[in-house]
């Protein structure tokens, strides 16, 4: 049978036809949407610039008005771009413009996170400006320093010094504002974590930059920079503590978190504005001791807990070597906080027995603290050092630290570990009643067995206060544990009364 034209046509028209896939369809629509948006946008903007549009407008005044508006827009944008240069520093013509533009920028940061970021960005800018102020003379200073050793430093002028101080103060206050937002408005732990991490990394960067800057700067500028760098370092302690609090809240799956950063920092840096070589040295020594004590307590921790802290320990050592006491202190406190958490765990892992023989010896000499920064051979003493825990009592404090008789500044309490701070807060009547410390009573209670075991808080000698049995092993025994908790509660109460009567 031969194929005729009609049959052929029929065959040809029934050749297979495929359908476009749904995926390809979606892809196309996505692209089309994007293109349409782009086109609309182009149209809107071209309405201002397209020459045809101007031709269409007959009245000259209208045209002139538009040209004027456009020109002023250009001026504002251009001016802002110019003002935003790091070389526009305090005291310069365009600086007020920059400040105004930043206010506008801040007004456009709607969410809390955006605000935190914006403030941190501003602080970075201030630092850049500071670098610029110092940098102007620093290259020359560096040249002269290398040429004439220490003789020919180029100092900043009086005004430049003022500007540098004000700029760095602004930088500091921007970071403070960022942390204020976190303190007062961010309660979701996840969010707080992100915010605090940004603050931490920004502070770290600031300190690093400031340290570098200090090296280049001439004498007077050096002092100004040092002060701010130290202050930023102090802040880091509070920030790291806050971060650890968040971590713990996240672990416990708490829904909200309340942080203190600024107030804690202020308490820490009561010495601020007084930082000089001597006080720095003293502060560093103090942190070093604190760290060494923490390390000693860690010696008795199970291996896996110790391993968890390897990185922190290393970092803290490096920080101490670099003179970064704030960072070291922060790490030390983070370790303390985790240590507490570990101790609060319901099933403490069996660990090596304490040597009771060692105990009286160490207690008989409460002031015999190691002054060497890191003594790897140091005998593990005991998990809680009573003399440390009792420090909040000011008179006792001076007793407790005979190792540092020549300290230039009386360390009242600003540098006590976290625990005591909390205590301080709760005791001080002038503190805010809604203090964020409140949600943590459990931590305090369970961690102060050593302090308040003996209901007589008037006793000054720590060794008298501590009963012979070791707290750690006691915890294994539930009955004894309960008894201890009772004792502890009683002790706490009496301690409270004691403080009130004082």
């Amino acid at each position, binding site marked *: *049978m*031969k*194929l*005729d*034209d009609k049959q*052929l*046509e029929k*065959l*040809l*028209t*029934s*050749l*297979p*036809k*495929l*359908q*476009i*896939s749904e995926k*390809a*369809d979606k*892809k*196309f629509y996505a*692209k*089309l949407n994007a*293109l*349409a948006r782009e*086109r*609309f946008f182009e*149209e809107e903007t071209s309405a201002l610039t397209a020459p045809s549009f101007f031709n269409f407008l007959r009245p000259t005044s209208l045209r002139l008005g538009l040209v004027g508006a456009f020109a002023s827009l250009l001026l504002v944008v251009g001016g802002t771009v110019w003002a935003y240069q790091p070389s526009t520093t305090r005291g310069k013509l365009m600086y007020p413009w920059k400040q105004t533009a930043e206010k506008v920028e801040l007004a456009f940061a709607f969410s809390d996170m955006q605000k935190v970021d914006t403030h941190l960005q501003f602080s970075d800018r201030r630092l850049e400006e500071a670098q610029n102020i110092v940098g102007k003379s620093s290259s020359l200073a560096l040249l002269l320093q290398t040429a004439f050793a220490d003789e020919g430093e180029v100092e900043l002028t009086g005004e430049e010094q003022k500007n540098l101080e004000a700029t760095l103060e602004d930088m500091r206050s921007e970071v403070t504002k960022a942390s204020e937002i976190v303190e007062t408005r961010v309660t979701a732990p996840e969010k707080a974590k992100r915010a605090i991490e940004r603050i931490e990394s920004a502070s770290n960067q600031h300190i690093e930059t400031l340290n570098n800057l200090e090296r280049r700067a001439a004498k007077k500028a050096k002092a100004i920079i040092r002060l701010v760098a130290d202050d930023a370092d102090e802040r880091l302690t509070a920030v790291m503590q806050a971060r650890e609090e968040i971590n713990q809240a996240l672990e416990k799956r708490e829904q909200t978190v309340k942080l203190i950063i600024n107030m804690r920092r202020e308490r820490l840096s009561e010495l601020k504005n007084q930082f000089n070589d001597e006080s720095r040295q003293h502060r560093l020594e103090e942190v070093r001791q604190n760290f060494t004590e923490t390390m000693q307590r860690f010696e008795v921790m199970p291996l896996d807990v110790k391993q968890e802290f390897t990185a922190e320990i290393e970092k803290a050592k490096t920080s101490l070597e670099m003179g970064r006491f704030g960072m070291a202190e922060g790490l030390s406190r983070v370790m303390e906080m985790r240590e507490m958490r570990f101790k609060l765990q319901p099933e403490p892992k069996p660990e090596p027995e304490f040597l009771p023989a060692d105990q009286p010896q160490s207690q008989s000499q409460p002031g015999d603290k190691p002054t060497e920064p890191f003594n790897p051979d140091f005998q593990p003493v005991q998990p809680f050092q009573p003399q440390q825990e009792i420090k909040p009592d000011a008179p006792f404090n001076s007793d407790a630290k005979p190792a540092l008789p020549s300290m230039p500044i009386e360390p009242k309490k600003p540098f006590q570990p976290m625990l005591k701070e909390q205590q301080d807060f709760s005791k001080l009547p002038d503190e805010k009643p809604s203090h964020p410390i409140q949600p943590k009573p459990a931590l305090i209670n369970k961690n102060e067995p050593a302090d308040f075991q003996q209901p007589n808080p008037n006793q000054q000698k720590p060794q008298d206060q501590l009963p012979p049995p070791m707290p750690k092993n006691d915890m294994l025994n539930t009955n004894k544990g309960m008894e201890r908790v009772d004792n502890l509660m009683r002790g706490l109460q009496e301690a409270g009364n004691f403080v009130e009567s004082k």
Partner: protein
Amino acid sequence: MPQKADIEQFTAYYEKHKTSIFNYILYRIGFNRDMAEDLTSDIFLKAFEHFDSYDKTRPFKTWIFTIAHNHLVNYYAGKKETLPLEEALEIAKEVGSQNSAEHNMTMERILKLVSHLSESQKDLVLMKYVDDLGNEEIAKITGKEEGAIRTALSRATATLRDQYNIQFQEDTL
């Protein structure tokens, strides 16, 4: 400058013609499905970009096919190989699986013959029968005279018919 109404209209056009354009491309690039889908999307986006230059008194079908035709020409300008239609056989089998075996065999033969036509003849045949375009539309798209198209088409179909009858006569007897 596309208005909202334009976009709606364009979307309607796309829905109406996407299958034709897709198959038009598919048959001409060796049944590479993914590629055909990409090219179809490109063609419609190109059309959208120039939608304001589209004369709405004229049929959209010819306009979009012209764009597709030119797009393919450009596409081939880079790659000089001609793609065989034989690959369509497999697809023809898949698509036509519900048809009788005899129908499928005939289909295969036709496709084979179409693929052996000269490029211009093949193009015409596909436009006419697969893409359902009229002679006038084909003329506009290819930029040729309608009469020339008619003659060329009848010549192509005659070739197909004769080839079919010579090659497969014995089978169908």
